[in-house]
């Protein structure tokens, strides 16, 4: 095992981890806001990737060009999901909440297959392609752009929830729904906004991912699983910490595979997840 290979692993894991983190951000935001886990999150990602793919296939719009459109589309989808589904199960038992979003996931996945078939699709000749070599380490340009995009999106999200009045209202709603309501915050509107932002985040992630990853109806499932782990590592509802959670997942995945055995790489990820859930249920960076 050469140093070069390990370095390559660190860079690859870091880049992928940032994308995982952005996928997880929406999940974490929604959970923090209303303690509902969106089991259709992976399917949101899948739809974002399909949106990017179709924009390319029909109008030759590169996923990076159509990114604002994808984000907007997924934001609307998040908003609609809140008003169409989630609003009715806010105070329902947890099991009902799980079934509602899980059912939505199955619906979206099967719908995608019925509409567009089960085949794999790739965006060919993306705007950004190729790689650069830095000190013997290969860095894929699409991956680099994707992770940079993820960082920018994270920065915007962080700025929004900590520096704007609406963002602070969002945080207040997350902390105490009733008190926020008494202070004149329209919590329904905040919830819908949370879903819209969560959707937009995964929309950006899907658009960035579509520049180098294949698209098909089941693509969301694998990413969603890693996103749940990233959320748990960062601490449920702690959006900035999700960034670290995602990066940790990306690094552990690649380095575990390189240093030990590739077949064990997810074992590292999930072992870490179990450790955190058992010993630091508030997450690596969470406070209770």
């Amino acid at each position: 095992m050469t140093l070069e290979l390990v370095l390559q692993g660190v860079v690859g894991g870091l880049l992928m981890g940032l994308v995982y983190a952005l996928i997880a951000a929406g999940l974490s935001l929604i959970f923090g806001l209303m303690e509902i886990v969106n089991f259709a999150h992976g399917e949101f990602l899948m739809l974002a990737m399909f949106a990017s793919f179709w924009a390319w296939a029909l109008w030759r719009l590169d996923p990076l060009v159509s990114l604002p459109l994808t984000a907007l589309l997924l934001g609307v989808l998040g908003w609609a999901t809140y008003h169409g589904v989630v609003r009715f199960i806010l105070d329902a038992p947890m099991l009902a909440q799980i079934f509602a979003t899980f059912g939505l996931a199955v619906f979206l996945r099967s719908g995608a297959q019925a509409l567009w078939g089960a085949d794999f699709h790739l965006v060919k000749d993306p705007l950004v392609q190729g790689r650069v070599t830095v000190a013997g380490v290969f860095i894929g340009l699409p991956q680099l752009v994707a992770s940079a995009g993820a960082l920018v999106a994270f920065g915007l999200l962080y700025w929004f929830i900590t520096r704007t009045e609406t963002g602070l209202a969002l945080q207040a709603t997350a902390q105490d729904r009733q008190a926020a309501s008494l202070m004149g915050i329209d919590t329904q509107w905040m919830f819908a906004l949370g879903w819209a932002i969560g959707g937009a985040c995964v929309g950006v992630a899907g658009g960035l991912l579509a520049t180098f990853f294949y698209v098909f109806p089941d693509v969301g499932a694998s990413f969603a699983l890693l996103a749940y782990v990233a959320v748990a590592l960062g601490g449920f509802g702690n959006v900035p910490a999700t960034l670290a959670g995602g990066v940790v997942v990306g690094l552990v995945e690649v380095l575990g595979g390189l240093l030990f055995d590739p077949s064990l790489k997810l074992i590292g990820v999930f072992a870490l997840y179990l450790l955190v859930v058992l010993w630091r249920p508030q997450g690596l960076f969470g406070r209770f």
Partner: protein
Amino acid sequence: MTRAWISLLAIVAIAVALVGAPVAQPKEVVVGVLYPMSGNAAQVGIDCVNAVKLAADIVNANHDLNMPLAKGEGLPGLGGAKIRVVVVDHQGKPDLGQAEAERLLTQEKVHALFGAYFSGVTQTIAQVAERNGVPHLNAESSSPALTERGLKWFFRTSPHDGHFSQAMFDFMRDLEKRRSVKIKSVAIMHEATQFGSDSAKVQEELARKAGYEVATKITYRDKATNLDAEVGKLKAANADVLLPSSYTNDAILFVRTAKNLDYNPKLLIAQNAGWTDPTFLKEMGKDAEGHITRAPFALDMAAKKPMISQVNELFKKTGGRDISDAPARAFTGFITLADAINRAQSTDPEAIRKALVATNIPADQLIMPWTGVKFDEKGQNSGVRAILQQAQNGKYVTIYPFELAAADAVYPLPAWKDRK
């Protein structure tokens, strides 16, 4: 009024039941067909189901093709009975395959089971068939272990990974002789379900026997979101030949990652599956140039076998694309099963099993490059022959065995920068 309607309906129902009972036994043969129609391999499964439906139609309706049961309608051995298929989706899950096979036998009363692409799923279905004493014909699962377990009710028309891998090593030897090149080591990369694991196992054995060093053996999950570590390890091992056993999505991700990290062995010989999915070549384009895959079926052999084009034309009408390897094997398997049921002249399981054992379809009645269909004592078709194909100018062409080859093998793989 309502009461009058109900009594009228009841009378009609009884009349239909009475009249219908003797007449409504147009003898039909029901076959339970299991494939993955959702999940990662959904498109392959859907293609296979289309191939099975085409095969059933060829049996049920009159077609002018030189293959068993094509001419005339239905199964003459059962007084013209038609074949009906009950298709179920096992989603690539072994437990679901097992449950669905049970349901097909108890609820749908099928006379035989057919499927199921994934070796891991085929295995659980084979066990259900074995327990219940019902014939199970498999057309495309390639784990050698399936026919090594001494199952009485399991039959496989397709070659398995032992045959295929043997062809790969024969090819490497012959290539070394022909081009006077030296191949020293191989790297094995395989997905972690039964297909990949068994394929890797047999390849490791064969490599050792043939005197090639196995530089590394890498296991990965086919649903992986990132293959950086795997490709990194392959690069470090730096073997002459890479032998991957992958499904479609992971094959796509692997090639993209290899390009990204500049990993390029001298030869890449794939164990079918992902590499022969038509989507793979369509999506990868130049990036797959020079890749070799084993294949039991080759569309470019139509020049030597006109029936291939005839069947392909029919397939395109329902399947919407060219028939490829997996559906061609499903098609051949289903015709074989229908042929056996016809000769059994009965839907009795034991009679069908005996007829399967006695199967003998000559080479000229197949769309496959085989010497025929004939089952050995383990239920494995002994007439199989594996061929190797290489992606050249965006199309797969047969390169081995040399006597069937349509083109010369390109060696070594072109460098990434030369594949523009």
